[in-house]
């Protein structure tokens, strides 16, 4: 669909000033009283955080705030900082490649023959994805994201906040909707055709080829189903939001600015129940970000070798990053939903594939869990030499979404010490 400027203005112009959710619940009230909607946001900081600035010395509730956590101090009671965790499959030689398994927990990312598995958000989407217009949002400031399909294929990430905004909130003209409908229908018929073509091919193939073709067929079937769902949503009214459409940031070094836009979009998507599952990759680039006092790229600074000048600059970048996370939490907490707020109903997970970027260590990963109705306000410390798997936390998060599951990756259960409020 294409949107001209006038249409964008129209969409934002008629925005309701009333809390949008009232409109939403007026619609919902026609049905039965709803259970609270549970949501999940997973964020990866692929270059991690400098541990001494991040982790408190003390454990429990009375920890002394660290420079990094200072930026989130106003949310202290709404998050838990978790230390000591280790993830599956990470190794220093493949520390960066491990972003591939960050939400999947698959073994051996980066190694020859590596086959990824399904990511956390997609597992959840299989059960709750069809309840919203978009089963999931896969966002990234630049390049690739965090979501993977069951067949181990990477889901392309959306890099453009303005395009995602348009998809979620801007309605095309009547003829565009019709054209879109025709396109979806034609798409489905074509997929139907190619399934028949594939069946013709299948008889002639050996067994390993058949596995590959099966993957293709599964994808075709899944897409057919998605197009069908998309078509149903096409005729239902789009949510109306008071926000102005975001303007994409073209400066490739301003990744934090891009992340901020993605976070704002996340809040809108959750508030309007356009989706309940969002993953966000916060890329760390090679060029110096536009932050006063920073002259080097994030990646190069992360290899600081304890050089005080580099650490000083790295600190500026990391705190700027955490500030945007804080802004997300503020926005979610400030959004009322029934007698609660959006943060209470959204589990926000922030973590990294790297424990120490400078040495490419994958131990003692920085993890922060906010909202979701857990009991927060503490530093949950595990022994880095004998850590529980990060996947245990993932099981806790899936259960919070209402999924009846006890396993994910190498999980041995839920994360001990993490309780519901």
């Amino acid at each position, binding site marked *: 669909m294409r949107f001209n400027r006038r249409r964008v203005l129209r969409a934002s112009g008629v925005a309701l000033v009333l809390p949008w959710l009232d409109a939403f619940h007026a619609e919902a009230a026609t049905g039965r009283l709803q259970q609270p909607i549970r949501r999940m946001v997973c964020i990866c900081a692929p270059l991690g955080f400098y541990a001494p600035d991040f982790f408190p010395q003390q454990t429990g509730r009375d920890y002394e705030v660290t420079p990094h956590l200072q930026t989130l101090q106003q949310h202290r009671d709404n998050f838990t900082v978790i230390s000591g965790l280790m993830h599956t499959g990470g190794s220093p030689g493949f520390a960066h490649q491990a972003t591939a398994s960050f939400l999947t927990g698959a073994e051996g990312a980066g190694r020859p023959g590596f086959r990824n598995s399904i990511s956390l958000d997609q597992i959840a989407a299989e059960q709750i994805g069809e309840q919203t217009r978009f089963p999931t949002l896969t966002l990234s400031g630049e390049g690739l994201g965090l979501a993977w399909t069951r*067949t181990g294929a990477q889901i*392309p990430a959306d890099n453009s906040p303005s395009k995602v905004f348009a998809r979620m909130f801007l309605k095309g003209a009547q003829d565009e909707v019709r054209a879109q409908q025709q396109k979806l229908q*034609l798409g489905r018929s074509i997929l139907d055709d190619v399934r028949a073509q594939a069946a013709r091919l299948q008889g002639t193939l050996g067994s390993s080829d058949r596995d590959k073709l099966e993957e293709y067929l599964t994808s075709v079937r899944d897409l057919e189903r998605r197009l069908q769902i998309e078509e149903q949503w096409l005729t239902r009214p789009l949510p109306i939001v008071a926000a102005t459409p975001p303007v994409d940031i073209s400066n490739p070094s301003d990744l934090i600015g891009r992340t901020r836009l993605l976070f704002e979009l996340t809040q809108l998507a959750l508030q309007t129940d356009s989706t309940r599952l969002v993953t966000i990759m916060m890329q760390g680039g090679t060029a110096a970000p536009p932050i006063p006092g920073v002259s080097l790229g994030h990646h190069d600074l992360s290899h600081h*070798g304890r050089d005080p000048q580099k650490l000083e600059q790295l600190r500026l970048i990391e705190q700027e990053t955490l500030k945007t996370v804080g802004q997300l939490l503020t926005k979610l907490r400030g959004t009322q939903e029934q007698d609660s707020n959006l943060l209470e109903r959204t589990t926000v997970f922030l973590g990294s594939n790297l424990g120490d970027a*400078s040495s490419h*260590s994958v131990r003692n990963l920085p993890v922060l869990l906010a909202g979701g109705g857990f009991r927060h306000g503490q530093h949950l410390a595990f022994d880095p030499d004998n850590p529980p798997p990060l996947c245990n936390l993932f099981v806790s998060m899936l259960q919070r979404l209402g999924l009846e599951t006890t396993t994910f990756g190498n999980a041995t259960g839920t994360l001990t010490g993490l309780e519901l409020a």
Partner: protein
Amino acid sequence: MCMKQGVKRCRLVAIWLLLPGLVAAAPIPQSRPDGVPETAAVAPFLREHCERCHSGPAPEGQFTLPTLTPSRQSDFSLWLKVRNQLRHGTMPPAAEPQPQTEPRTQVVAEISHWLADWQAAVNRQQGRTVLRRLNRSEYVNTIRDLLEVDIELKDLLPENPAEPGFDTTSQEQHVSPYLMQNYLNAAERAIDAAIASRPRPDVQNKRFDIRDERTVKPKGSVYRHLEDGVAIFSSWVSANIQVTLWQFQSRVRGRYRFRISGYGFQTEKPVVFHVMVGPMNAAAQQDLVGYFDVAANEPEVVEFELSMEPAHTIRIIADKLGAIPPDVEKVGAENYKGPGLVIQWVDIEGPLLSDWPPSSHTRLFGTLPQHRLPGNPARYEVVSEKPIEDAEQILRRFMKRAFRRPVTEPEVEQCLTRVRAELSAGASFETAVRAGLKSVLMSPQFLFLQEQPGRLDDYALASRLSYFLWSSMPDDTLLELAAQNRLREPAVLQQQTERLLNDPRARAFTDSFTGQWLGLRAIDATMPDPMLYPEYDDILKVSSVQESRLFFDTVLRENLSVTNFVRSDFAMLNGRLAEHYGITGVQGMDFRKVPLPADSHRGGVLTMASVLKVTANGTTTSPILRGAWVLDRILGTPPPRPNVAVEAIEPDIRGATTIRQQLARHRDTPACAGCHRLIDPPGFALENFDVIGGWRDQYRSLGTGEPAVVNGRRQRFLHGPVVESADQLSDGRAFSSLNEFRGLLLQNPQQLARAMAEKLLAYGTGAEVGEADQRELDRIVSRLAEQNFGFRSLIHEMVQSEIFQHK
């Protein structure tokens, strides 16, 4: 556990083969083809040297010896590990009693034979290469050749998977509903571009005078208006101080020809500039067209052609003039005495059309007439008197090329059913044909390369050859030879390989293969620290990648020995690289072949700025990363990856300790020494090259050290400790310098050729070279030895090999 080995070997293969789902009923290898005697060496050897540590509840390194009656595919990789450890001599650890060379070699040979037999049986059933999908660039190129369109599609398709391996490797390729959605969108865009549904576009052909550009102000700026053009004294892209051709924008997608006239001003040296292309909005992504230079005082015309999307323009940016805009503004452009770039005019012609409707259109629709669409006079549609018949003809022609082989009747029928359905639902002829075309582009026959186990038929061979050398579909000549069953004739195949290599499309091979083999795709992964490496700039980066490609092309074109990749007596250089390498007498942006003196430490890929950059992190070099790179990319013996428990070395840029002192820890720890005596030495040999590929005798430091002065200017970095590059290879051969190290590598050209052959085969067949391929690989290398290890000969040997011609 202890049995007669000969009997067991057969049983072992049998058990593997009988596994359901793995291999149905492969014939059990009865005898060794090469007559190596049976041996019962394995079991007692393992018991003596391995079992004590690698068994029980807590095995060393969490590695338990695989069972001698292997039953799973994973056992195959475990045995592979055992064999490789023994072959490299990395196990048993140095502190343990060492086996004699002879039993060790025998055991390695024995295990290798099991592995080869096992894999050969699988290959006979399945082929080496599982169903291979067109990767991103193959898809884009295929669409370009199939539909004769020149359009941007990369934004619609997911990036190629990251390392390891090549993006042609089918094991690594996956399909998802998202990818299928992207294919739907890409097909639509491509078909739209191929069909001429608008009237013939007007061709612009105009000379633009830079003095008319509103941003090129005559006063108070960095520009001076002259009689014959505009002098530019400085450019600053981040502040948008650059010459944008606002007067021009491409009205439609197409190819445009540019001619820029300019000269160097107030200087005696050539002046460099670069041109970017992109949307009018300066903040949007701009793509580099290239770097150019013009002579001093003598107007020169730079000419290039570009494929442009609609509403794009170009920008001209002067380089290396030495002044930033405030310097010029301070004295005023009128009074400024420093060097400048004069741009006189820019001629632009385009879109370049030979026919209308274009061949992309007529190739599909022939001479079928077009009518204006009622209600939309600017839009045309193809019409037909006999829609079904015409559609059938169109689709038959198209499918044959799209499927890269003759089509079957049911396949055509399937496609026609769609067309009929659309027509009967009231769609126009063109709409119905578009639906048919789209369904062809979505079908697995188009998206996958179709190969049957065993020897490839001529059509599959045609595709394999063209995707190898062109990253695109076979052309009519190849398909015609396939139709005559002649492509497999060695002489014909040889001739076709030559033809493909000499075609401009072979550039895809150079770019894609070097991009992956040498890791050039990662050239932007790091940004050298500007405090440590102030001389690094974008021209150097772009030039360094170009150097690698041109060097590769030269070795290929002139059929030079593969040893040139390790050391050559020439380099492909332009002025910027020559300056970087300390070679005099080369100026300007044009590349040329430059002879190197015998004692030069340049020549070959190991000493190229591009390779040295992608093997470093922007701040420091690591002999481990570079050593592992040499072992993998050049010698074909990738080292084992580090244990999870091992923390990487933290680089120290404070100048206190050298990497050699830090790495000494590895050599002193038995658990590390096994691998690091393999990995580190080649890395140390390259230690005289810094992160941007400059030569250094001392490390640069930001902490302690002596003051550094370059060209009379005090630098922000300091001279740190002295670099030591001497070391000894794991086999004991010592070297004192880079050149001695290269001399040692050159003693074994067979190994270099073999490594190269493995990479080429993996790239060209879509599957890693495995255990079962080793004998054929031996044959390729020995034949190549008779041809002076010529690189072009290697391509021919490879194409003629059993490996290449089998699925």
